[in-house]
């Protein structure tokens, strides 16, 4: 069998190659009825598990997700996993914000379009154009719908999801304010894809007939952790208190609470403007709090032996960013595949 084919456009971009896996549309993944994991604090988190089954084994499929007009928040792909069969795949997408509904829970969930190499996709028809690679497998098949990338962009989140212009005061006492919203992300960058005056991107308030209907491939690799620690020490003096020092019996209680939140990166539409503007921001993924208390009772604290305590080292992640570099965003038109 002969093999090998290379098609380039005027810019020498590869259109079809026998040396690569050419991605073809395999189908839309099935939406979940509800989120697999969610919480409502810090701007809300939803983890959505989509599924798709191929008739044949396949290498890792590539998902694209839509951002419906009614969808609030931003989203990214966190996982594409299969069982041992390599036929049924789960695509994990996280998003911030509500899942709005006009009747069903998943009305405004993203749609997920899945692309993979043509060997995993059933074909029909007796004519068309096939390209084979060196091992004899099909790398391109015109009877299927190949992925057409219309735009490629770069997305980089701001390093800090939180504004530096407002402070919060949470309880230092045994995580009493664990049900807080102090970590709601407020910061985002703006990214533009395509020409700035592109008129065919989704418009605020809904698309128009024939409007460009984008879908996105974006992996939520960047991560950031933020924490705020509050401590309260109460000293009660039984004796003579002079300017905060105690002569006599003193009891001191210290309680410290450290509130924290992990985020992953995502993209969303910038609803304040029309056209091709995207928000590149953060999705809260896990949050919690750690607390510690201690009590010291001292007699004649001012003159006595006193007490001491010490701590050191560092937690694995404290106000850190991880993998925070510009990520590529692939954009395609999902109306080609509806």
């Amino acid at each position: 069998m002969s093999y090998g084919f290379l098609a380039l456009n005027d810019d020498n971009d590869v259109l079809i190659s026998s040396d690569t896996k050419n991605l073809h549309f395999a189908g839309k993944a099935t939406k979940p009825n509800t989120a697999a994991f969610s919480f409502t604090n810090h701007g809300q988190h939803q983890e959505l598990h989509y599924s798709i089954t191929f008739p044949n084994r396949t290498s890792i499929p590539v998902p694209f997700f839509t951002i419906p007009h009614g969808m609030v928040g931003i989203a990214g792909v966190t996982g594409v996993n299969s069982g041992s069969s390599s036929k049924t795949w789960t695509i994990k997408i996280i998003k911030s914000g509500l899942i709005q509904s006009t009747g069903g829970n998943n009305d405004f969930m993203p749609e997920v379009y899945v692309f993979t190499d043509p060997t995993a996709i059933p074909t029909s028809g007796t004519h068309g154009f096939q390209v084979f690679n060196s091992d004899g497998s099909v790398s391109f098949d015109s009877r299927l719908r190949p992925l057409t990338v219309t735009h490629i962009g770069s997305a980089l989140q701001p390093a800090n999801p939180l504004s530096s212009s407002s402070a919060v005061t949470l309880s230092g006492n045994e995580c009493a304010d664990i049900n807080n919203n102090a970590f709601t992300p407020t910061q985002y960058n703006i990214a533009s894809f395509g020409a700035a005056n592109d008129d065919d991107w989704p418009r605020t308030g809904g698309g128009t007939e024939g409007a460009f209907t984008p879908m996105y491939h974006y992996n939520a690799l960047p991560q950031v952790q933020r924490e705020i620690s509050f401590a309260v020490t109460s000293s009660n003096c039984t004796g003579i208190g002079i300017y905060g020092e105690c002569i006599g019996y003193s009891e001191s209680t210290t309680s410290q609470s450290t509130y924290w939140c992990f985020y992953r990166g995502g993209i969303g539409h910038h609803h304040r403007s029309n056209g091709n503007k995207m928000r590149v921001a953060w999705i809260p993924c896990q949050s919690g709090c750690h607390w510690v208390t201690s009590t010291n009772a001292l007699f004649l604290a001012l003159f006595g032996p006193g007490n001491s305590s010490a701590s050191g080292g560092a937690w694995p992640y404290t106000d850190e960013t991880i993998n925070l570099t510009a990520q590529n965003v692939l954009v395609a038109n999902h109306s080609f595949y509806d």
Partner: protein
Amino acid sequence: MTEIVKPFTITNTVTEPDGNIGVKFWAQKTTYEGAVTRVAKMSTYISVAPDADVDAAIYAFLQTGDWV
């Protein structure tokens, strides 16, 4: 020369990937209520523009939370 006591202590600074300065600091506030002395501390992180005054940015942050 007047020595100004700052109501906060900077414990670490980093240069963030987008060029801003990440500042880790803590602040403390002490109140006296009869025989009880209450000391509240907060440790947090803010981002400051590279050409901004870090001390002024922290002070402004603490003002919004009624720490100073």
